[in-house]
């Protein structure tokens, strides 16, 4: 098998990469540019709302560079998890930007896009057949939960992307994809060892996070018969055995055995060798094909609407009684609204605002506290009403030993309450069995023709 070279411009499309690094990477003559554009890491909001993760400006700027260099070199461009969550509206948004850039640059090519949305009826059918299981959510997926689910995607494997490439696509905009698979699809479609290609994808998907110094930047992988090589695009970075091996840990629990769509990766026999100052050689990665094809589902439900209020506390007598005061104010709100239909919480920065229950330091040593009053209720008006009532009550709360009777909290803003809109939460993080790797992921082709200028 010939050598296949993959260039990954950055860890998440829209977060940037260096021009010098892209030039450096392109000098290694890649056969494909492949990049991941999303994950669940920014939280459930983007899947729920359909709002893209990055700005249109950033996406257009970066896609413009990648389309220009990939078309000039005559190599395909693959984008996985388009738009952030990889749901239909995120794919459509990305495709529309691609069309616009093609018009502006006078580019002609075959475009493919792949949706990853899952009808809830499909999951209900799988539930009734016992073909759904929990991944790590800690709760069972039920029909009721599916009825509440407002957006649901599945992580595709490399197969739908390889199918689009085999169909002649020059540019593939894929919906939600397993990060590694989106990067590995091209080499696997061209006959690379799937174990090496998938492990290379696993490392490349974060761009130059596997280099030192690490950063959102260009990384290049070269897969051969029995090993692959990694080298950063920028001359100011290098790949080292430690930087690459350590990256195998990042954002995943088990560094040795990692399940993916229709397979699992066994990395127990991997070897990492420094072959030159900036290059690392990896071998021994094994791809174990599963008997059954399971994909990961990601779903969200709308839990209500959020209003918050931000307030500062500087008075030492108030800080000394903060737990008691917040407890009182919370109980009073429950009585006042005579409802259990809202959630009310206090985040206290300077106490345990960052770590919550995991905070080992229980005594407050700060001279000031930052407070976020957090309310989620069935509608925005109610959430706002609760937040306003609570912040007002706290402002004028009376407690023993109080010197200052004019107000207990410093609001940095007017209005003191901020309506944060709909609140989404994960409702599915489960595995579902498919009849084929392509079943859920329809591929669309379009020939884009513009006058070259």
């Amino acid at each position, binding site marked *: 098998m010939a050598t296949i070279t993959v260039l990954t411009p950055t860890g998440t499309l829209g977060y940037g990469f260096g021009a010098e690094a892209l030039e450096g990477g392109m000098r290694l003559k890649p056969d494909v540019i492949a990049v991941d554009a999303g994950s669940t890491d920014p939280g*459930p909001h983007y899947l729920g709302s359909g709002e893209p993760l990055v700005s249109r400006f950033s996406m257009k700027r970066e896609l413009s560079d990648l389309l220009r260099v990939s078309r000039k070199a005559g190599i395909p461009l693959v984008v996985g998890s388009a738009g952030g969550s990889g749901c239909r509206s995120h794919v459509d948004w990305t495709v529309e930007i691609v069309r616009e850039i093609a018009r502006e640059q006078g580019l002609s090519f075959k475009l493919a896009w792949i949706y990853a949305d899952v009808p809830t009826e499909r999951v209900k059918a799988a539930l009734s057949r016992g073909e759904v299981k929990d991944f790590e959510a*800690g709760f069972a997926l039920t029909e009721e939960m599916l009825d509440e689910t407002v957006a649901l995607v599945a992580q595709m494997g490399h197969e739908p992307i390889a199918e689009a490439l085999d169909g002649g696509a020059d540019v593939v905009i894929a919906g939600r994809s397993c990060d590694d698979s989106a990067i590995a699809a091209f080499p696997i479609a061209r006959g690379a060892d799937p174990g090496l290609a998938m492990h290379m994808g696993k490392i490349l998907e974060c761009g130059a996070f596997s280099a030192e110094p690490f950063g959102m930047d260009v990384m290049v992988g070269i897969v051969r018969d029995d090993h692959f090589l990694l080298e950063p695009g920028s001359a100011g970075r290098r790949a080292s055995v430690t930087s690459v*091996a350590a990256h195998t*840990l990042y954002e995943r*629990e*088990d560094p040795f055995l990692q399940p993916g769509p229709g397979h699992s990766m066994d990395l127990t026999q991997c070897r990492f060798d420094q072959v030159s100052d900036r290059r690392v050689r990896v071998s021994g990665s094994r791809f174990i094909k599963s008997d059954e094809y399971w994909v990961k589902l990601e779903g969200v439900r709308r839990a209500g609407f959020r209003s918050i209020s931000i307030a500062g506390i500087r008075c030492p007598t108030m800080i000394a009684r903060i737990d008691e005061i917040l407890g009182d104010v919370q109980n009073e709100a429950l009585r006042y609204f005579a409802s259990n239909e809202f959630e009310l919480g206090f*985040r206290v920065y300077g106490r345990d605002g*960052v770590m919550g229950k*995991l905070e080992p330091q229980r005594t407050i040593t700060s001279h000031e506290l930052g407070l976020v009053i957090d309310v989620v209720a069935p509608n925005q008006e109610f959430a706002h009403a609760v937040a306003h009532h609570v912040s007002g009550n706290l402002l004028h709360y009376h407690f023993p030993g109080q010197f200052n009777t004019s107000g207990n909290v410093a609001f940095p803003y007017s209005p003191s309450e901020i309506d944060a809109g709909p609140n*989404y939460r994960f409702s599915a993080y489960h595995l579902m069995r498919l009849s084929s790797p392509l079943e859920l992921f329809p591929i669309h082709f379009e020939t884009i023709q513009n006058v070259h200028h």
Partner: protein
Amino acid sequence: MSTTEKRLRDFAHIIRSKNAGPYRLTFDILFKDDASFEAVRDSRAITKESIARLYGVPLDQVSSLFVMPMGRAIKVTLRRPIGQGDFGDSDIYGCQQHAPLLDLPVVPAGKA
């Protein structure tokens, strides 16, 4: 605490926390050199028990611990006390939960 007592930050050059999916919080401890890695590994300062104690969680909330000589790394994973983005979650990316590890005492093996 004796003046000679060392802490994890004296051995490791990266101590980080991060989500591994919406329901896991994973900690990576990467060491400067083999000697530092071996000293901490052999000290048994990082065990499922010590991590549960440090973060005040029941032992069964520590879902795994891996020692990885090739990466000069030790990796520990907790079940997230609150799912990512669920009500009360305070750290969407899970990237600011590492601080207590910096000062975890390390008593080299044989010196205890």
